[in-house]
C-alpha cells in the first residue's frame, strides 16, 4: 500500500513536463517521461505503471486521444488510471463522436486543463490512484 507509485508522463512539451515531474517527485512518486506518443506507448507496454498523465495535442495532432483509445481496447491496460492534461481551449469534445471523454476512454480517467495548479495536480493524482485501487479491491 505504501509502495512508491510509478507514474508515466506522455507530453511533448519538455518545460511543462519538467515542472510537473518536479512536483510529483517531491511528493514521493516515481516518474518516467516519454516525450512522444510512440515512446509512451512502448513504455506502457513494457513496464508496469500505476498512473498515466497524458497530453492530447502531440506530434501531428490529437495523438493523445489515439493513445487513450488504444488503452481502452487493451485488456491489460484498460484498468490503468489516466489523467488527461490538455491545453485545448476549444470545445473539441464534440469532435470525438461516440467517444467523448466521458463516457470514459478507460475505466478511470479524468481531465484537467493546462496549466495545472500544483495542489490540484497532486490531489487529482491521489484521487485517481485511490479510485483505481478501490476498483481493483472490488473486482478481487
Amino acid at each position, binding site marked *: 500500500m505504501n509502495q512508491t507509485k510509478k507514474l508515466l508522463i506522455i507530453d511533448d512539451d519538455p518545460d511543462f513536463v519538467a515542472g510537473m515531474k518536479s512536483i510529483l517527485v517531491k511528493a514521493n512518486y516515481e516518474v518516467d517521461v516519454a516525450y512522444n506518443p510512440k515512446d509512451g506507448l512502448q513504455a506502457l507496454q513494457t513496464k508496469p505503471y500505476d498512473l498515466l498523465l497524458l497530453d492530447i495535442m502531440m506530434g*501531428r*495532432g*490529437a*495523438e493523445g*486521444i*489515439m493513445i487513450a*483509445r488504444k488503452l481502452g481496447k487493451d485488456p491489460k491496460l484498460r484498468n490503468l*488510471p489516466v489523467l488527461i492534461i490538455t491545453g485545448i*481551449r476549444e*470545445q*473539441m*469534445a*464534440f*469532435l*470525438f*463522436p*461516440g*467517444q*467523448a*471523454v*466521458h463516457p470514459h476512454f478507460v475505466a*478511470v480517467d*479524468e*481531465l*484537467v*486543463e*493546462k*496549466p*495545472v*495548479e500544483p*495542489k*490540484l495536480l497532486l*490531489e*487529482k493524482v491521489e*484521487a*485517481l490512484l*485511490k*479510485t483505481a485501487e*478501490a*476498483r481493483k479491491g*472490488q473486482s478481487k
Partner: protein
Amino acid sequence: MNATAETSVTATTAPPEDRIPFVEEIKNLLYASKGNPISTCIQCGTCSATCPVASGGFMDNSPRRIIAMIRSGFKEQVLKSNTFWYCASCYQCTVRCPRGIDIAELMYGLKRFTVWRTEHQEGLIGPTFSETFVKMIMRTGRSYEPVLATTYLFTYGLPEMILEAQTATSLMLKGRLPLLPARIKRLENFKRMIRHIIPIGDKE
C-alpha cells in the same frame, strides 16, 4: 453507525472528481488567466448588473450568483445552469469587475468543463449550436447558416419562427443567405488534413 459506514463507502468508491472540492477545479480553469481568482469576489453584483443577458432575464442564475454557488460547492446546480451558455461574451463583467476577476473567461471555462464531461443542461441552444457548427466545418469546410439556424429554430415558439422565416427570406432575396451550402475546393484534401490533426473517431 450506518451513516458512518455509508460515508466511508462513498469515500472509497466515489469518482475521483467528487473527492476534490468543486471550487478547486474551477479555480484551475482560471489558473492561466490574467485575472484574480474567484475567491477574491466580494459579491458586489457589478457583473450581474452590467450583464445584458442577465438583466434581460435570460439566465437562470446571474454571474454573481454562479460565483457564490461555485464557492459554496453547489456543483450540480452550477453545471446544470444555463448562465454560461447564455453568456454573449461581451466582456462587460470582466471590464467592470472591481476585483479584476475575468468572469467572461470563467463562463468559457464552465462551457468547456461541461462539454468535456457531457454534463450540460439538456435542450439548450448553446451546446447544440456549437456541436453542429464544429461538425459542419469538419464536413464541408464552411459554415452554412440555413442548417445552423434550423438546429435551434424549433426551440422557439411559432410567432418567433415566422419572424425568423421572414428575415431569412428577405436575406435570401438580397443574396445575403446562400440557397445551397458552399463547399470549398479540394474538400477531400481538407478532410484528410483535419483527420491527421484531430482523430475524429469512427463514423457514427
